[in-house]
């Protein structure tokens, strides 16, 4: 079997805002068939790491390389942002949001072609939101909104899908649907999912990146308590038995 190719790599990346370092010591690669969960406490730097990968935030030092492309464009990365950063009363339809995934810097004036509208329709059909394509985003449920953003992220056929807290503000039905959708997608593309809800994602992901100022890559979806302690990761303990399950344990505070 062919070894999976690299999509991007971070080498010794240090990044943050306004001079303050939020993540340091960050080196890892994302491969073609990866399904990585980015976990860690709130404020630990999960979103900072995502912004660095997306090219929205320039690192203070270190290097990011993208393959085979040189920058994180729409054919490499599809991105699903946190919902709370969206204005839900904005006057825009589902179809328009999905089509916005095809926007390109050198083609701002051009109208969408028949082919592109067809792409959008196919994507919406696939996600089960074709009937509500004319509806404004303000009239959608949390799950429908996430499906819309999934369509926007996927319409440019990226090789890597990045999701930032996709299970916030959605019902249980969507959450189980989401993991089924991601599982299918993972046959063809790599997935990077940010979540503080490690209990649910641990049985779906293949590997874990633990972000708490320091960034650690685990080549497994299980972490032992010893490892957690060594990494100063104040998260719940993850393990899998015959039936996938999560053993929850409150982590001791750092000062103890």
């Amino acid at each position: 079997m062919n070894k999976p190719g690299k999509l991007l790599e971070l080498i010794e990346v240090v990044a943050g805002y306004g001079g303050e370092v939020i993540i340091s010591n960050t080196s890892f690669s994302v491969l073609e068939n990866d399904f990585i969960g980015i976990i860690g406490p709130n404020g630990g730097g999960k979103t900072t790491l995502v912004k660095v990968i997306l090219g929205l935030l320039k690192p203070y030092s270190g290097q990011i390389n993208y393959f085979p492309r040189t920058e994180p464009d729409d054919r490499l990365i599809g991105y699903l942002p946190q919902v709370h950063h969206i204005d839900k009363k904005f006057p825009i339809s589902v179809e328009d949001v999905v089509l916005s995934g095809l926007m390109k810097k050198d083609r701002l004036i051009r109208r969408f072609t028949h082919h592109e509208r067809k792409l959008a329709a196919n994507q919406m059909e696939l996600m089960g939101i074709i009937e509500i394509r004319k509806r404004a985003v303000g009239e959608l449920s949390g799950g429908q909104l996430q499906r819309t953003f999934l369509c926007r992220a996927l319409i440019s056929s990226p090789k890597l899908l990045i999701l930032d807290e996709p299970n916030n503000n959605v019902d249980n039905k969507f959450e189980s649907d989401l993991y089924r959708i991601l599982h299918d997608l993972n046959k063809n593309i790599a997935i990077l999912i940010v979540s503080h809800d490690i209990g649910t994602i641990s049985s779906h992901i293949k590997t874990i990146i633990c972000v708490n100022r320091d960034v650690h890559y685990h080549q497994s979806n299980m972490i032992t308590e010893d490892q957690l302690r060594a990494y100063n990761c104040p998260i719940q303990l993850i393990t899998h038995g015959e039936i996938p399950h999560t053993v929850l344990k409150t982590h001791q505070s750092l000062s103890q």
Partner: protein
Amino acid sequence: MIFELFQFKFFFNAAFAALLTSISCGIIGTYIVSKRIVFISGGITHASFGGIGLGYYLGFNPIIGAICFSILSALGIEFMAKKTDVREDSAIAIMWSFGMAIGIIFIFLTPGYAPNLLNYLFGNILTVSLTDIFFSLLLATGITIFFVLFIKPIVYISFDEEFSRTRKIRVDLLNYTLISFVALTIVLSIKVAGIILVISLLTIPQASANLFIKDFRKIIIYSVLIGFIGSMGGLITSYYLDIPSGAAIIFLLVLIFIFLRLLKFLLTRARQQNQNQIP
């Protein structure tokens, strides 16, 4: 009876100005309301008063001064909020009061009486000159062409700026261009409604349209329509009742908004009752 009014040249000018202002404000207002930057626009409006004061003091057309001050304050707020650690609403408050302070100081220093000062504060559409109309025509044309060409990136960036950045769109350039159009629209509408009232020309038609319509492009069209009905109606009312035109226009626009809101309430209730009767 109303047609007699159009025989007066000043009234014809005023009607034409009302149409052009409705177009510019209808388009720019939709951008402002959708992107929730009404407060920025209020800041820009009041900051332009500094330019009016400077115009009086140095003896040039106050509108030229207002244009410079509004664009500089618009870019200043955008820059301070995005590139420095000043919070956006604080940056707005600083520009808002600083511009007003400069205006008050220069008008105080100007010897003698400041003519037409009240027209700048409260607006008087009947004093619109051919030059004003020429510039309004230029602006309305410019804005219309710009929005027709760039409607996609304008909507997408206003909706989700961060996502647009991941698509390598030149978000900053577009934002600075749009905020400059906002500044120009505000200043060229000052003659119609005055510094104190102009913000309502940019928000009430949009808020009214948004009651029934949830699509950016359609809100533009209906806002232009509502704005034009409001300003023509206000203009005619002000003529017959002999009240200030700016205030009459705003009053009428608010009446339209209240009427549409009530209509929406009644329609929603009627629909709910219908649904209740079905089972």
